């Protein structure tokens, strides 16, 4: 049994004039110690997916269907009180912007100690000791001093280290990291990512990495999902997808990277842009931008087909697979 | 609510433990006026508030009774010695709050001080001297025969000479009168009156306590303590009475008379007053007013009865002349003359059928409903095609405008300090003369040497009947000449809780004789 299993998760935003489908039938799983990447452009629903696992989607959003099983227990059916036992304790989160994530008016120590005390019967002194150890673990210089500092007194990289330390405080099983390095500079990014990776490997913590950076995913994760307009259009082992993407969107995304083009020449480009939630077209949401579009694509969302170890939702791909399967019969 | 209230008052009486109050003077009274006394020096300012204070903490030689006759107070008797001299005999055994005994010297000291006071010196101008005869006898001497000698004597509230002599610790004379800054006399008092001031927070509260050695042991008064709170806002003052916060209020706004009268727990006393409210028509500023027909037209256009009934809620006596009933100059034959047709005819006759535009000014916080009255008058004048540009001002700004005679018609209210008709004419209708000071408030610039001569004559006429005839004739002439537009005499009203028997102590001068007040 997978550590975390998401089955047919539907998330909607209740806005004036009806609901918007933010996530449609999302299914994936995460094993213990596994590193999973969630890739997509902004608005694809990857953050919504991350937040709905812990039922943390903001007000107009709500879970309309499906289940999130953590160790076999359905998180989406749990009471707030029960969920609080999981949040931060078994499943920790790292947010995108370290500037905004820490409460500006509370010291680092307070924010670490309160997390510990929320889940363990522990004295403040003991909690501080644990906090100190975790700060050392993320190699923050003079950690004892940091405990009494306010977030604004730390640099961006340092803050993200603190957040990683908080995530590790209660030795969780899963860390969900939502664009953990996007707000940081390139050289700092590399450092933070390396740290996170090392710590996850060391403690065998599962990592769910949400990012738009294909390079990062390719280097860090073992498996990845590609999202588009609230749907998972492709998922499978990272290497396979990067090396041989099946879905036209994934292909386009990879080919559009400057490093894939020849310097000074036009890059491959996907025409148009991802529709907003209120304007998702019927059928495959990618069809208006897809070079292989057919009438079928315009009408119904394709089912997943297996290509190698990769699940893809695309009629073109399923056609190709059919042809391949049929091929041996045709050949004499 | 009543129960609550008595408990409330009771606890109060307990809280303020009495020092020494005469056997029966145990009641306490909470009093709300529209203003509190400006100073404790009764010679610093001539105003109603100060005179009210004077009657509480001092006693005059003689005072007005309800029916406008004289009642002996500190002077137990007086007799005319010659044309210019009146001899007074003081009551014996009267002591000041300081414990000093009252003597003729104190009266002389007071008289001299009055002659120094900028506010009072005008009243005592006819007097040349106060001569001490012995400890309890003195002569009051005028330079010419003066018919209003006794009227003026009501302003003599003997002060404690010993108390007010010498210098205070700053080296200033204790007797000094000053409008600016504080003087010894403005902070300290020693009088012979029924009450002593025990504490005073200006603008907030003054507290009085009955003087244990008060000479008038015959007084039925049983109030031991008074606290006076100024409540300027009419509604709040009335609310305070109705909610039981105070026992006695004055003045009562006309709009609330009905309500207080109908309330079983409160009682109301009204009296027709002596303060005349009138408009002057400025002949100098506005030429058509020089035409007697125009002035008459205006006089005919004004419905005094309407104003008195509607705006004043019957709380005013419509006036056709200056002198209220009871004054020597009051002429019974003069009646209000509201007649729009006649007024229109007069305007036509004067050649102003199409009317004209005039400016008008009135205060808006000086007299009862002053601004509303002015508006009503403006509306009435509109009927005879006189368009009025009306401006009402707070009193502080109004008086400078008045001094400048800034509008064609200006409102003024006048109360004769001497309670005598001549005072009206001197200030309101005589030809303005800065040397003699006559006509100081004559904002109409009306000038009639004939009537002026008659007034002068009356001022030295000691035969009261003759004098009355003379003054009534003046009144008639002014009426015929439409020298001004009289509106009404503003009535006086006081209200109290049923248990506070205010009626016997009130008078048209608006000096409640609180020493004699009985509270049940």
């Amino acid at each position, binding site marked *: 049994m997978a550590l975390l299993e998401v089955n047919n998760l539907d998330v909607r935003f209740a806005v*004036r*004039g009806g609901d918007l489908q933010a996530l449609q039938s999302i299914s994936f799983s995460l094993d213990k110690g596994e590193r999973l990447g969630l890739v997509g452009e902004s608005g694809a629903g990857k953050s919504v997916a991350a937040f709905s696992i812990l039922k943390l989607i903001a007000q107009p959003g709500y879970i309309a269907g499906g289940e999130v099983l953590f160790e076999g227990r359905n998180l989406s059916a749990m009471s707030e009180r029960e969920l609080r036992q999981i949040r931060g304790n078994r499943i920790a989160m790292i947010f995108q912007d370290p500037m905004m994530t820490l409460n500006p008016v509370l010291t680092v120590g307070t924010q670490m100690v309160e997390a510990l005390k929320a889940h363990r019967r522990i004295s403040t002194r003991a909690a501080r000791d644990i906090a100190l150890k975790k700060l050392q673990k993320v190699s923050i210089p003079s950690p004892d001093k940091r405990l009494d500092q306010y977030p604004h007194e730390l640099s961006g990289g340092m803050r993200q280290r603190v957040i990683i330390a908080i995530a590790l405080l209660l030795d969780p099983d899963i860390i969900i990291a939502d664009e953990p390095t996007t707000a940081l500079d390139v050289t700092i990014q590399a450092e933070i990512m390396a740290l996170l990776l090392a710590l996850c490997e060391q403690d065998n913590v599962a990592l769910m990495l949400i990012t738009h950076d294909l390079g990062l995913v390719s280097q860090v994760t073992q498996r990845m999902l590609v999202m588009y307009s609230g749907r998972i259009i492709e998922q499978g082992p990272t290497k396979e997808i990067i090396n041989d993407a099946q879905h036209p969107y994934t292909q386009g995304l990879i080919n559009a990277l400057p490093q894939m083009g020849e310097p000074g020449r036009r890059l491959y480009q996907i025409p148009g842009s991802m529709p907003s939630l209120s304007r998702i077209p019927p059928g495959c949401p990618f069809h208006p931008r897809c070079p292989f579009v057919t009438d079928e694509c315009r009408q119904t969302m394709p089912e997943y087909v297996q290509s190698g170890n990769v699940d893809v939702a695309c009629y073109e791909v399923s056609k190709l697979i059919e042809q391949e399967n049929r091929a041996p019969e045709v050949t004499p | 609510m009543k129960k609550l209230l008595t408990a409330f008052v009771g606890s109060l009486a307990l809280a303020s433990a009495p020092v020494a109050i005469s056997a029966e003077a145990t009641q306490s009274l909470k009093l709300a006026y529209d203003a509190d006394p400006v100073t404790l020096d009764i010679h610093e300012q001539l105003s109603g508030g100060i005179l009210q204070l004077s009657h509480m903490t001092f006693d005059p030689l003689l005072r007005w009774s309800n029916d406008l006759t004289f009642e002996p107070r500190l002077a137990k008797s007086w007799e005319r010695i010659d044309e210019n001299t009146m001899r007074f005999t003081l009551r014996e055994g009267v002591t000041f709050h300081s414990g000093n005994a009252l003597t003729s010297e104190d009266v002389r000291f007071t008289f001299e001080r009055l002659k120094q006071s900028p506010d009072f010196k005008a009243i005592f101008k006819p007097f040349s001297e106060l001569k001490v005869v012995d400890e309890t006898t003195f002569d009051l001497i005028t330079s010419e025969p003066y018919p209003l000698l006794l009227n003026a004597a009501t302003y003599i509230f003997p002060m404690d000479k010993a108390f007010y002599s010498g210098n205070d610790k700053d080296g200033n004379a204790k007797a000094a009168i000053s409008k600016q800054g504080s003087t010894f006399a403005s902070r300290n008092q020693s009088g012979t009156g029924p009450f002593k001031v025990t504490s005073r927070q200006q603008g907030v509260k003054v507290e009085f306590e009955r003087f244990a050695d008060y000479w008038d042991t015959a007084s039925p008064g049983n109030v031991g303590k008074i606290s006076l709170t100024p409540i300027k806002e*009419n*509604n709040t003052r*009335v*609310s305070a009475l109705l909610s039981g916060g105070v026992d006695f209020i004055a003045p009562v*706004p006309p*709009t*609330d*008379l*009905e*309500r207080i009268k109908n309330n079983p727990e409160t009682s109301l006393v009204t009296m027709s007053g002596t303060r005349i409210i009138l408009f002057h028509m400025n002949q100098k500023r506005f030429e058509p007013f020089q035409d007697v027909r125009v002035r008459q037209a205006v006089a005919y256009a004004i*419905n005094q009865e*309407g*104003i008195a009934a*509607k*705006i004043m809620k019957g709380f005013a006596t419509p006036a056709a002349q200056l002198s209220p009933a009871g004054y020597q100059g009051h002429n019974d034959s003069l009646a209000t003359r509201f007649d729009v047709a006649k007024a229109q005819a007069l305007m036509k006759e004067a050649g102003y059928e199409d009317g004209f535009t005039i*400016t008008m*000014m009135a205060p*808006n*916080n000086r007299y009862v*409903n002053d*601004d*509303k009255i002015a*508006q*009503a008058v*403006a*509306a*009435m*004048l*509109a*009927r005879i*095609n006189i*368009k*009025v*540009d*009306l*401006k*009402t*001002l*707070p009193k502080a*700004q109004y008086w400078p*405008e008045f001094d400048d005679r*800034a*509008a064609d018609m200006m409102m003024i209210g006048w109360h004769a300090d001497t309670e005598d008709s001549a005072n009206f004419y001197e200030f309101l209708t005589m030809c303005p003369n800065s040397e003699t000071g006559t006509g100081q408030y004559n904002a109409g610039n009306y000038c009639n040497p004939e009537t002026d001569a008659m007034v002068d004559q009356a001022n030295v006429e000691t035969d009261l009947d003759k004098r009355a005839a003379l003054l009534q004739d003046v009144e008639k002439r002014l009426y015929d000449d439409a020298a001004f537009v009289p509106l009404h005499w503003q009535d006086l009203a006081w209200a109290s809780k049923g248990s506070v028997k205010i009626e016997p102590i009130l008078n048209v001068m608006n000096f409640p004789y609180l020493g004699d007040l009985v509270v049940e």
Partner: protein
Amino acid sequence: MTTATVSRWDRFRESFLWYSFKRDKIAIVSFVVFVAIVLAGVFAPLFAPADPYDLAQINIMNSELPPVWMAGGDAQFPLGTDAQGRDLLSTILYGTRVSLLIGFGAVLMQGALGILFGLLAGYLGGRVDAVLMRIADVQLSFSTLMVAIIVGAVFKASFGNLMFGEIAIYMLIVIIGIAEWPQIARTVRASVLAEKKKEYVDAAKVMGFGTNRIMFRHILPNTLSPIFVISTVQIANAIISEAALSFLGLGMPETQPSLGSLIKSGFDYIQSGSWWITLIPGLVLVVLVLVINLLGDWLRDMMNPRLYKG
């Protein structure tokens, strides 16, 4: 040009503003009531049975008649009469007009001062900003009442007392305008500071546009929605301020009453039974201010929930 306007209208009808307005009952009711009151005020001379400014129509003997539905009411005076015998309905209609005029006028004045100073302070920054905002600070330490006294005295010195009737309305506009401009200036400055950092301003600079063009053509239009929201609230505030000044006797003369001075003039009568003289105009005032506030709230929610920070 017509096509452009039509398309603008279409655009408006498709807009979120119109959409949410249609769905918000409170906004619709407030808007209808507001428009009704404004129309009644603007066209007061058409609707009013009598002209309260014409003194010749007034008869003192008709004073304090109760509304028509009460005993003693007179059909000639549907809402009764005031202490002068004026028809209360007409007086309220005219008074509403005066109050609205002062409300809008004062906000125009505040807007003119506030926008100008706010733009200058926000865009030019530095010393100009420091000086203007310090003035605004000082200004805020005066209550409207104090400004009223000061401006009143200045007006009096310049025009004399007799002109008062004619200039009172302008005076009140100036008073409330001066007393409250910092509110708008601060709002404008805050949004200019935010807008100034946006790249379209840099783009305009790079194009070589002059300072005035950038300030007024580019930045100003983008600060309009907060100005609009705060102005709505400020109109309500101005109407209340005027009422308060009138209550203290510093407002409109009773010969040309505003709602505030009507309330004040009836104030003496409220406890003596003639409640309608105060309470009916009071109700109109409260309803007027309330619907403006409700519309302001709604607008604020629509345009920018962050605005109320002052």
